[in-house]
């Protein structure tokens, strides 16, 4: 169907997008790589020459590296577990017949549209403030001592805030997947007397497995780079300094560009490992 002429027109039509993305990828990436092999302190002497792999070694051996890796893993893992488990339950609930389903869906999805700085600040002040926060009121009501959420339970707090933001995404995708489930199959199983749990394990969960994988992969990519939520709540204090935040501090706060760039290369490698799995699934879907 496609002629030689239409092929060259097609190539021309793709060119702007391809060239722009190629530039967007290659130029900064090359610069990051370049800086990562240099001692580069813009405010204290500028370019101080090549240092080989020194920055890579120093980034990994600094005392803040492993805590940052740990914080990153705990946040990503915690949010994934909460959003996927609650997301499945919520999707199954929303799939049931009920009155006002559309409105409930809207209520559940809403947090996804709240900008990260707003949700983080609202949670930080109006809910987690140890004196005037709503949670403090609730704790006092039950006679408990209010918690200083963001300093004493900093990781739990961040995980709560981020989970609240991402639960709608997981729910919405899982709900879409559940709705494509053949209801006759479920009804048949119900008629045959299969108990609820069995139906869940043998029919619903296998059907959802692909959607769950996609939710996990996409969320991981976004969660690895959460920034604003930490920026406006703890500023990286109280053990909440993730890898992304650590690199940000090295690059912009202490202006140690060489060191930060080496960290950036690590972050890129980490994200790519996750991305490969996601691309495989998406790629398979393209062929179908």
């Amino acid at each position, binding site marked *: 169907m496609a002629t030689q002429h*239409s092929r060259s027109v097609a190539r021309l039509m793709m060119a702007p997008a391809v060239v*722009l993305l190629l530039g967007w*990828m290659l130029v900064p990436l090359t610069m990051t790589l370049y800086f990562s092999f240099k001692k580069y302190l813009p405010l204290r002497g500028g370019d101080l020459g090549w240092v080989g792999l020194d920055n890579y070694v120093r980034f990994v051996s600094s005392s803040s590296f492993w805590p940052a890796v740990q914080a990153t893993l705990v946040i990503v893992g915690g949010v994934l577990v909460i959003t996927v488990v609650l997301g499945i339950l919520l999707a199954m*609930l929303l799939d049931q017949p009920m009155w006002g389903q559309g409105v409930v869906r809207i209520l559940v999805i809403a947090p996804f549209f709240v900008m990260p700085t707003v949700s983080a600040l609202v949670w930080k002040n109006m809910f987690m403030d140890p004196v005037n926060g709503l949670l403090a009121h609730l704790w006092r009501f039950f006679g408990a001592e209010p918690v200083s959420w963001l300093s004493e339970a900093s990781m739990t707090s961040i995980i709560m805030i981020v989970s609240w933001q991402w639960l709608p995404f997981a729910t919405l995708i899982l709900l879409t997947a559940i709705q494509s489930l053949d209801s006759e199959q479920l009804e048949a199983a119900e008629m045959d007397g299969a108990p609820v749990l069995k139906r869940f394990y043998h029919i619903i969960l296998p059907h959802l497995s692909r959607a769950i994988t996609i939710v996990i992969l996409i969320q991981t990519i976004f969660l690895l780079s959460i920034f604003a939520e930490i920026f406006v709540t703890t500023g990286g204090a109280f053990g909440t300094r993730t890898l992304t935040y650590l690199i940000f501090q090295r690059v912009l706060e202490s202006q140690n560009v060489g060191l*930060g760039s080496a960290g950036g290369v690590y972050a*890129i490698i980490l994200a790519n490992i996750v991305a490969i799995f996601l691309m495989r699934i998406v790629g398979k879907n393209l062929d179908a």
Partner: protein
Amino acid sequence: MARTVTTRRKSFNTALAWAVGLLIFFPILWTILTSFKTEAQAIASPPLFLNFNWTLENYAIVQERSDYMRFLWNSVIIAGGSTVLGVIIAVPAAWAMAFVPSKRTKDILLWMLSTKMLPAVGVLYPIYLLFIRLGLLDTRGGLVVVLMLINLPIIVWMLYTYFREIPGEILEAARMDGATLKEEILYVLTPMAIPGIASTVLLNFILAWNEAFWTLNLTAVDAAPLTAFIASYSSPEGLFFAKLSAASTMAIAPILILGWFSQKQLVRGLTFGAVK
């Protein structure tokens, strides 16, 4: 008999779902309510739900103190500009990939997606440096370009999945009737593609509006959008819950409304067509 059971079950589902839905929505509701309280009422113990004197003074204070309209305008320009620019660049590309596919189309699509996976912090300094050198730091134009680039893969993907659903036979029929490429695009394709383009615009406007890494790091005063405006409330100052709530409500209201219209596109756009 069977009917009463279903009705009871439906009532139970309804009650449970509404309770959960309201619980999830509660932080937003509470923010909106607090924005109409006075600062003293905002921290009253026990908390006041509806029994307070509704006031609009916080909105007036927020606007007066920090010129909210300027940030709003920046958000509109940055989110709108990056979306429009992105769509203009992506439509031809997605059209070509959907209707004149070649062996490499799939690779190009996956490669575009892979640029989206690049962690922003990994290229923070180069972009920062380029912005300084090119005089783009704290300009709306610079942010329009950056946000367009980070969302371009999603825009291309969404448009591609929509265009692919347009049956190719229609194009062939038009061609048989002697339509030129230009006529084909203008009179056949465009009308069929408009719903897909509209959904793409909507979702990407939302994503750009809420983007909070580049907007926080590349703006200071002049080009700061609402994300940065809200971040300026992160250092507490006396009583400020009601003002924070008013500012937050104003920042999220437009996008909440747009978002509700885009729920369906959200799934397609954010899973790159892998879940429909």
